[in-house]
């Protein structure tokens, strides 16, 4: 145990920490480290707490808030940095950390990194998007300049502006364009000009050339936001052609130099005035042209025969009417004459002269016809009567009765049917037989079928008239 003891008296923790603090802080008043940031945390008070580490070890670090404010870039997680600081022992807890006095990104300038970081962030937010750009007015009458009032740049701009637009109104918002607070002044001026009742048509924000540090204010977020929020279109004009700042990206139009900004901001009024004169001339010519055309048409119309000899047409028509009247009259006369002629022909016809002649003749004709008709009718009736008598004689000679008179008889069944075939009779059947004189009933005893032709022939004879049979 004594081996560990050293001084015989044991130490309090406080005393030990105090001695460690004295030794460490005395031994490491200044450290320069290459490390990677980790666990970056911004406290509500505005201090930055983080770790510095390599692949094997790490150490706590702190950046107090007054230094945080001066930090140009964002202290991101995993950033390769070079740190200058001092070791501090936190006596109460027995811990130690690096109190950072200066921290810069490794391998890249702090401003360059800051620019990259801000650019990426604003681009993500859409501040550079073409759809956000306002068009410049064609004929600005009042322009605001946000720049240093004592620079060569403002002199250049005013010279060009008034050369092109001699009657321009310019409102200068004087600002510092570099150094501490410059960005804030520029942003405030842009906002102030936007509120100004002068109602500016356009703002030019810029400065002449300088080192990247000189131009730095135009890379700050505050300026970028003020330009973005401006209701008045903004032309940026920072430094020379090679310099491109965040302000240039946010502005509605970027000019490479202040002189160019003046040129693109206002039109050349001499040109506008001559254009205006040209339009005045065109207006007169166009109107006069119109009047002349109308006059030409009027003259052309006044040369028209109708206007030159207005009665000519009327006379023509009078004549035409008279000719028509003549024609009409002539036509009427002809029609009347023709009608009269036809009437005379009609009047001379016999039927009209002796109207009853024809009738008497017709009556005579009619009587003659009637006599002839009567005579013919009488003859025809006589003839028919004779024929009828002849037919009657023939008809009587055919009567069964006249056949019976000649000795034949006629036998009938009780139903009155003439018996012509013995096979139709049955034994014991009653039949009636008519004779020339009287008749008798008898009963069939036997029947005998005879195919005798004589019987058939006899029947035939029976029907035919005896006189006419050969």
């Amino acid at each position, binding site marked *: 145990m004594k081996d560990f003891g050293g001084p015989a008296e044991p130490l309090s923790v406080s005393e030990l920490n105090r001695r460690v603090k004295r030794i460490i802080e005395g031994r490491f008043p200044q450290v320069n480290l290459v490390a990677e940031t980790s666990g970056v945390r911004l406290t509500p008070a505005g201090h930055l707490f983080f770790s510095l580490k390599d692949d094997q070890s790490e150490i706590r670090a702190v950046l107090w808030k007054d230094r945080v404010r001066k930090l140009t870039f964002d202290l991101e997680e995993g950033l390769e940095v070079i740190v200058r600081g001092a070791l501090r022992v936190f006596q109460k807890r027995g811990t130690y950390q690096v109190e950072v006095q200066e921290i810069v990104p490794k391998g890249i300038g702090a401003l360059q990194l800051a620019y990259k970081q801000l650019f990426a962030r604003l681009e993500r937010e859409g501040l550079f998007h073409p759809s956000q750009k306002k068009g410049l007015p064609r*004929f600005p*009458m009042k322009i605001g300049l946000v720049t240093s009032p004592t*620079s060569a740049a403002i002199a250049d701009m005013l010279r060009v502006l008034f050369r092109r637009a001699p009657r321009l109104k310019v409102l*200068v918002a004087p600002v510092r364009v*570099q150094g501490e607070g410059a960005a804030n002044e520029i942003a405030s001026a842009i906002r102030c000009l936007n509120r100004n*009742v002068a109602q500016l048509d356009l703002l030019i924000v810029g400065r002449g050339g300088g080192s990247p540090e000189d131009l730095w204010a135009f890379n700050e977020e505050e300026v970028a936001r003020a330009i973005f929020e401006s209701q008045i279109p903004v032309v940026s004009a920072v430094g020379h052609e090679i310099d491109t700042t965040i302000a240039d990206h946010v502005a509605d139009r970027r000019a490479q130099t202040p002189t160019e900004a003046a040129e693109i901001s206002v039109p050349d009024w001499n040109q506008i005035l001559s254009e*205006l004169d040209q339009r005045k001339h065109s207006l007169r010519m166009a109107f006069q*042209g119109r009047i002349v055309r109308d006059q030409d048409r009027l003259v052309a119309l006044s040369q028209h025969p109708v206007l030159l000899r207005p009665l000519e047409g009327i006379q023509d028509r009078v004549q035409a009417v008279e000719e028509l009247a003549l024609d009409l009259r002539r036509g009427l006369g002809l029609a009347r004459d023709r009608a009269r002629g036809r009437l005379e022909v009609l009047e001379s016809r016999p039927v009209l002269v002796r109207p009853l002649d024809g009738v008497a003749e017709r009556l005579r004709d009619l009587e003659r016809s009637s006599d002839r008709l009567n005579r013919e009718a009488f003859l025809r009736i006589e003839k028919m009567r004779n024929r009828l008598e002849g037919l009657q004689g023939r008809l009587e000679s055919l009567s069964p009765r006249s056949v019976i008179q000649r000795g034949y008889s006629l036998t009938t069944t009780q139903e009155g049917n003439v018996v012509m075939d013995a096979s139709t009779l049955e034994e014991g059947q009653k039949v009636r037989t008519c004779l020339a004189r009287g008749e008798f009933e008898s009963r069939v005893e036997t029947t005998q079928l005879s195919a005798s032709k004589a019987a058939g022939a006899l029947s035939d004879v029976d029907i035919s008239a005896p006189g006419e049979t050969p």
Partner: protein
Amino acid sequence: MTANAKDESKPSFEVSFDRLEEIVKVLESGQGTLDESITLYEEGMACLKCCHDLLKKAEKKIQLLMTDEEGKPYLQDFTGADTSDSESS
């Protein structure tokens, strides 16, 4: 700056300038009645006058936007910087 408010009711130079061009085009096309042409011509002349009036009224002026101790802005005529002096260029 009160005159500015009055300007609002009047068409801007741009509007008059463009309208004038439009009128010239219509007249040159020869369309419309004589009455319409006369009306257009008169309107064109009015546009011309408006443009010239706006230009006549405009005058060269440079002012500085200053702020007083209370931070209130005020305008002050600017005389410097017409001749070149140099700063950080």
